[in-house]
């Protein structure tokens, strides 16, 4: 027999009713169910059930996010080496990235799991795997320089206020990871915005080397006053290919558009992310940016002329659409409402980017804003749908 199986079998009695750690049963159950699916059988019709459970459903999102971590670890180190004037050798770069990212992930999971376990134990329900996705998403959206205590505070806010006070996974109306991210953005702007936070400095430096601009492409786009935005990016040293691959100072893992595309495709193929939200989002970017292009006249800011594809290349737009907007719990449930929801997120993002100088990136707030409207969108479509039914009772 598997030794891990033996361990669980021998320890189970301590956690079941009457055992020494009876109160921690749900923590035990959670840990055991990671290794072995529960042996529960059906007690009512239907007698058979589908093989899919929430654990696998959520696990697939984490699978899609793993490449972002690999990329993020590399990019954090790479930008750090560039800014510090060090040669971009692969292993030192990865070393710097690991040193920055791994502690953040550990802190996020430890703190997030603590809150989830606490609430589950008090409320006597199982620990939902949605937590692991929120904790996987959260560090990817942070600047690599974020102090660990702020990371802990952010995920605490996200899990507790964004989710648990509403009843836990499945009952929250806001995306917990984004809620935590937004909390940090407003509570600690010094550590979450500006040009300096996106790059980790190494080799004892306090300022980047002269050739390095710490500004993110979004900030450059917003600051551009003449010429075109792509020109401004090129002047700052960002080629379109670099933007596509995400090799610029940004949050840890959200900048790589290529991985967002492959991840979104993967999630759509396995049916975990709804294609309606993603396509609605892309449509929204195209429509809104094109609309602004048409609106712009001579003398308008260059940002208004930026084409939709370029919008999707920079910042967290692709990441937000692929992974944050598609969170099925905080998104609307109805198919039509999901199109509108995706579209509106993208439209708001573009408007915020172009017109609001206070927010270089708008996707996070746009998603949270549309999270609030998700129930309304659902309600509208449900009402339309119910009207079509032939009533049963007169």
């Amino acid at each position: 027999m598997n030794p891990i199986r033996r361990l669980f079998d021998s320890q189970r009695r301590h956690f079941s009713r009457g055992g020494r750690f009876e109160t921690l049963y749900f923590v035990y159950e959670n840990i055991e169910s990671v290794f072995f699916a529960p042996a529960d059988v059906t007690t009512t019709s239907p007698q058979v059930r589908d093989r899919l459970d929430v654990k696998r459903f959520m696990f697939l999102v984490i699978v899609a996010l793993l490449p972002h971590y690999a990329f993020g670890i590399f990019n954090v180190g790479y930008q750090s080496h560039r800014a510090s004037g060090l040669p971009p050798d692969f292993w030192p770069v990865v070393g710097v990235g690991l040193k920055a990212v791994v502690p953040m992930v550990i802190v996020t999971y430890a703190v997030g799991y603590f809150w989830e376990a606490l609430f589950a134990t008090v409320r006597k329900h199982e620990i939902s795997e949605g937590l692991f996705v929120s904790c996987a998403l959260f560090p990817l959206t942070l600047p690599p320089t974020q102090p660990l205590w702020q990371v802990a505070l952010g995920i605490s806010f996200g899990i507790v206020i964004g989710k648990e006070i509403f009843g836990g996974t499945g009952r929250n109306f806001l995306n917990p990871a984004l809620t935590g991210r937004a909390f940090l953005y407003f509570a600690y702007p010094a550590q979450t915005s500006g040009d300096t936070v996106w790059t980790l400095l190494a080799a004892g430096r306090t300022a980047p080397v002269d050739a390095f601009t710490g500004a993110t492409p979004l900030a450059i786009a917003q600051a551009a006053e003449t010429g075109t935005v792509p020109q401004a990016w090129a002047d700052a040293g960002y080629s379109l290919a670099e933007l596509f691959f995400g090799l610029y100072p940004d949050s840890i893992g959200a900048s790589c558009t290529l991985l967002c595309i492959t991840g979104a495709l993967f999630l759509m193929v396995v049916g975990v992310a709804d294609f309606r939200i993603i396509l609605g989002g892309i449509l929204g970017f195209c429509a809104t940016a094109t609309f602004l292009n048409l609106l712009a006249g001579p003398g308008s800011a260059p940002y208004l002329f930026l084409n939709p594809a370029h919008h999707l290349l920079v910042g967290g737009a692709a990441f937000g659409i692929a992974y944050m907007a598609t969170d099925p719990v905080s998104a609307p449930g109805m198919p039509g409402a999901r199109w509108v929801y995706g579209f509106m997120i993208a439209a708001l993002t573009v408007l915020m980017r172009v017109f609001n100088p206070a927010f270089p990136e708008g996707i996070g707030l746009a998603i949270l804003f549309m999270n609030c409207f998700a129930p309304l969108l659902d309600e509208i479509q449900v009402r339309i749908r119910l009207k079509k039914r032939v009533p049963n009772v007169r």
Partner: protein
Amino acid sequence: MQRRAFGEAPRILRQTTMGVIHLKKGYDLRLAGRPGPDLEELPRPPRVAAVAERLGFVKPRLAAKVGERVSIGSLLFTDKRRPELQFRSPGGGTVCAVNFGPRRRLQEVVIELDPEERHEPFERIAAAELESIDRKRLIECIIAGGLWALIRELPFRDAARPGTVPPVLYVGLDNLEPFHPLPEVYLAGRRSLMEFGLRVLARIAGAPPVVTACRADAADAGTVNGLASHTVRGNYPAHDPGVLLYRTKTTPEQNHAWFIAGQDVLLIAELLQTGRYPIERVVSLGGPAAANPRHLRTRIGAPLAALAGGRALGGGIRWVTGGVLTGAAASRESFLGLFEKSLVLLPEGREPGSFLGWMLPGAAAPSYSRTFLSALRRPAERAMDCSRHGGLRACIQCNFCPQVCPVDILPQLTYKAILAGEVEEALAHGLLDCVECGLCSLVCPSKIELLQTLSEARARFYEEMG
């Protein structure tokens, strides 16, 4: 009167072209262990029973006692709510046991069979009489013969109210739920009996019944051809009369359609033609844990153990009567109920899942979703067990249940409305259209008991309506 006018012809089906209806939703389970078309004659069992469990709303009132001599067709119990629902003896001999379940609810009346069984005589109706006989008298014959419970009424699926005229009467030759007898098997050699039964039903309903078949293009459909007036194509539960009604109805009046299963028509026909209480049944035996799955000719009330014989593969097997999605787990000491035509043997699957099983690619994992490798090459047959395959979680709006629901309910919202006590809202969502097919619970990754919640709410509503 309006309903009567509607009953003249199954008008609600005329709008469909060529009598072919397609169900795009639903889901084909493809459970392993599908019974082949061969029919095995089972020997006469030493005892049979009238089963009082698994009868839906029926509240049995015992009408026999231990030691009493009974013939085939003797009254054994009735329904406390509706005295016209009489349940008669499927065997002649001595009542050897009356078993009660929890709260002294009648479970079954067991009869030790005599070598020579006697028959209770019932009124015979000749084919020539059918056109002229009074509808009421015909119904009374069926009631007296103990078979009225076989004709049921939507939307609650209780026995039809004999005082009313249905807008339409559906006869379902096929049942797509794993696993039910194939019409070509149970109709073999009994076609004229079936035709007689359909004429009886036409008199009762005031219009020819809508006879549906699901596999009219099957190779062996010769026996079925000509009987079915409509073909319903699609996944499970395309055969269900509630689905057909939902797809075709235009007004609320049509909701009280009646329906009966194809094989049950034979029982009514036999009762009226021979004047004897019918006891013959063709039962399908299948499932992943059944060796040599096939059709069995046996009799109503036969012990389940006699049906399964030595065909159960290994230990830890669940015996399911009436289909794996809507049927019930039965004790192996139980007997074949009046409605039951199916015995499925499923592995219990009580052992914990394999190590880190949720991470495995799952090339053979039976799943509605596309989250396993099995989505690339859907296996022809899926070996399923009774494991729940996961823990209970809150709804995550994966939207699988509305995708499979054959009557376009939004189960994920309807069940929340029910749990919040919003009956009106649940009704507006189509709670009464629910055909209780069980697909929503089947596909739910959060393992929420949607079917149970919805059907309990339906039953509560029905009982409160009185």
